[in-house]
């Protein structure tokens, strides 16, 4: 048993971090705020060249044949760098949608809203809310994720989709549709379960990246900003906010890695429980750390200029996409 990332895994994550810092620097990303096409096709091909969408495609089929655990480390870096776009569905659709693995086709996903009459779930959407689709303008394919089925839809079929004028995350443009067609069936119950499980693990990894980046930003400010003649990071009230950010991120990272390894090595545990728990804790860590990051920055944290809000808002987008904390906690409750 050796739960530490291998040298190769660390090198891959480090390489990804450097690549993303060069290609998706924050200043450059922020120029696309509020646009309907924040995904730049050139940048998307570069992600594809780096293997982001083909990480787990078998080597014989032109992929990298890596386990989910290694992939989770790459996704943590994508989260840390706030890389916009439908990263999760495009990666999960490799092998399901032609061109997804190569980055030629940008794949999005959407879930049908719960049917009328179904009970409202905490953290979920209710029966009167519209279906929300992210990044519709750049999508070449849309995977419809149902409870026991995956459907594939041509995004052009959503011709009545209304663009949202002010999406919460300025780097995740949204569209609303009244009804989501089921599309062509491309997977049954097993594939739908596989999608959900891996989406939870890799969504958790993106969220851990956000939680860690928010911590770094807050700590840098706490070192730098002076009041009462000394850095605010020397005050315990601020220190403890920062320490709690570390705890949340580290605990969530361990959970995400354990969930990923459990999917890779099913005999070591219950992958469903591990994936749901990891997504739950990673979502909470990212949202709470985004909030704390704003708090540590004081008034500046509430300004648009400071990127603290970007981590918080992206965390909300991802958490909302993961079907709600209530459902995730239920999964664990039924299985521990």
């Amino acid at each position, binding site marked *: *048993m*050796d*739960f*530490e*990332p*291998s040298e190769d*895994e660390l090198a891959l994550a480090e390489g990804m971090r450097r690549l993303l810092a060069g290609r998706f620097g924050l200043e450059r990303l922020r120029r696309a705020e509020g646009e309907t096409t924040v995904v730049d096709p050139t940048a998307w091909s570069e992600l594809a060249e780096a293997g982001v969408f083909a990480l787990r495609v078998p080597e014989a089929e032109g992929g990298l044949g890596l386990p989910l*655990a*290694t992939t989770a480390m790459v996704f943590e870096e994508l989260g840390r760098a706030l890389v916009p776009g439908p990263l999760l569905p495009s990666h999960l659709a490799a092998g399901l949608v032609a061109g997804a693995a190569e980055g030629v086709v940008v794949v999005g996903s959407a879930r049908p809203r719960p049917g009328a009459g179904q009970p409202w779930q*905490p953290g979920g959407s209710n029966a009167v809310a519209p279906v929300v689709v992210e990044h519709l303008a750049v999508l070449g394919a849309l995977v419809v994720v149902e409870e026991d089925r995956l459907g594939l839809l041509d995004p052009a079929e959503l011709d009545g989709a209304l663009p949202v004028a002010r999406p919460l995350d300025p780097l995740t443009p949204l569209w609303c549709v009244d009804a989501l067609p089921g599309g062509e069936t491309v997977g049954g119950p097993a594939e739908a379960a596989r999608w959900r499980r891996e989406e939870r693990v890799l969504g958790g990894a993106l969220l851990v990246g956000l939680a860690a980046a928010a911590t770094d930003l807050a*700590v840098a400010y*706490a*070192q730098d900003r002076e009041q009462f003649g*000394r*850095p605010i*990071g*020397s*005050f*315990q009230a*601020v*220190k*403890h906010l*920062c*320490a*709690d950010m*570390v*705890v949340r991120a*580290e*605990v*969530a990272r*361990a*959970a995400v*890695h*354990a969930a*990923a*390894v*459990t999917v890779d*090595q099913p*005999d*070591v*545990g219950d992958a469903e*429980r*591990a994936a*749901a*728990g*990891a997504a*739950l*804790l990673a979502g909470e860590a990212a949202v709470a750390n985004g909030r704390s990051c704003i708090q540590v920055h004081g008034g500046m944290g509430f300004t648009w200029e400071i990127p603290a809000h970007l981590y918080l808002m992206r965390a909300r987008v991802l958490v909302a996409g993961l079907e709600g*904390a*209530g459902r*995730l*906690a*239920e*999964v*664990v*409750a*039924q299985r*521990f």
Partner: protein
Amino acid sequence: MDLRYTEAEEAFRAGLRRWLAEVVPTLGPKPSSLDWAGRRRYDTAWQRRLYDAGYAGLDWPVEGGGRGASPVEQLIFLEELELAHAPYVGVNFVGLLHAGPTVIVEGTPEQRARFLPPILRGEEVWCQGFSEPGAGSDLASLRTRAVRDGDEYVVTGQKIWTSHAEVADFCELLVRTGPEDSRHRGISWLILPMDSPGIEFRPLRTIAGSTEFGELFLDGVRVPVANRVGDENDGWRVTMTTLSFERGTAFVGEALQSMELLRAYRDLARRTGAWEDGEIRRRLGHLGAELDALWALARRNVSQAARTGVPGIGGSVFKLALSELRQRIAQLGTELAGPASLVWDDLPGFRTDGTYGAGTPVPGDVVASDDDVAERTAGGDGVVGEGPVGNGVVVGTWVHSFSRTIAAGTSQIQRNIIAERILGLPKG
């Protein structure tokens, strides 16, 4: 990242599991937590069993008389002991986890030969004399004075939170040998024989009603200079060796026991019908997810220790998160138990069908210590113990949970450590 155990690790686990299955059922009943002499007998007899089977000092280096097991084997050891509901380290805690490891690293060959084997064999019990009424979280401000007089130190002062002092043979004692304001630079680490003249122990009553620890008054106690471990005034560095051991795998058993407790609470919720409440189910699920995550973090810390050879700073994160989580689990238990959580004594009716007040309280059947909590929690699966969790466990767990965020470094001190040593934030 690999969570599978190697063949050698699995073989170690299998051997240990076989041995535990043979031995644990033959152990006599555990003495009441108020019976200190009985507890010493019970805990040291268990240590002797471990010694005879070759499991004593598993994590100690071979040159200290231990087995030099890998951190992963230590983890397996703690996991299997928990699964088998084996006795806890109990009164052997300070000897095995603090004093012994310190003597191994910092002691002279004579000190190692004299003090280590009896700890491993369960023949001698140690207690800890670190904290003082005026030196808690700020341990370096301690004032218990040791004045050199020929081959002896004459020690005068007061210690507090001294666990197991009633039954201890030796005390790992921190004393001031430098000037009054010398702080970290003027402390020495002494081995104090507890039968020395001039020692008085007064137990402190805890909020659980028990006497888990107390105050130690030292009045002109003479300690041979030969009993000093490390150089004079170098005791702070010597002590840090000890504390890093405490933050290694020391809380792993507690994490595993907490999962067992949470399952017992889930079963309690099912018995009482609270399980039908989605909010309760989701709280249980959330706590389960957190425990799973901490078990993952424990394996990560152990893997790090295996690579680097030293317990990492991750121990602070683990200790802080686990102790805070334990309080939330304990809180949920009291809510599930309802009015029965107001009663220390076990209510027999509560235990069987979820109703309370149906039976007569069992006199003296009080959960007075953490070990009791662990013991009574066991049995939810029918292996050991007395069936489903009773209200005594709920109450005991809840009350004891408040000590967890204080002992071994308060949550506030852990946050300072994380902020200063991991994040590099400036000292205040």
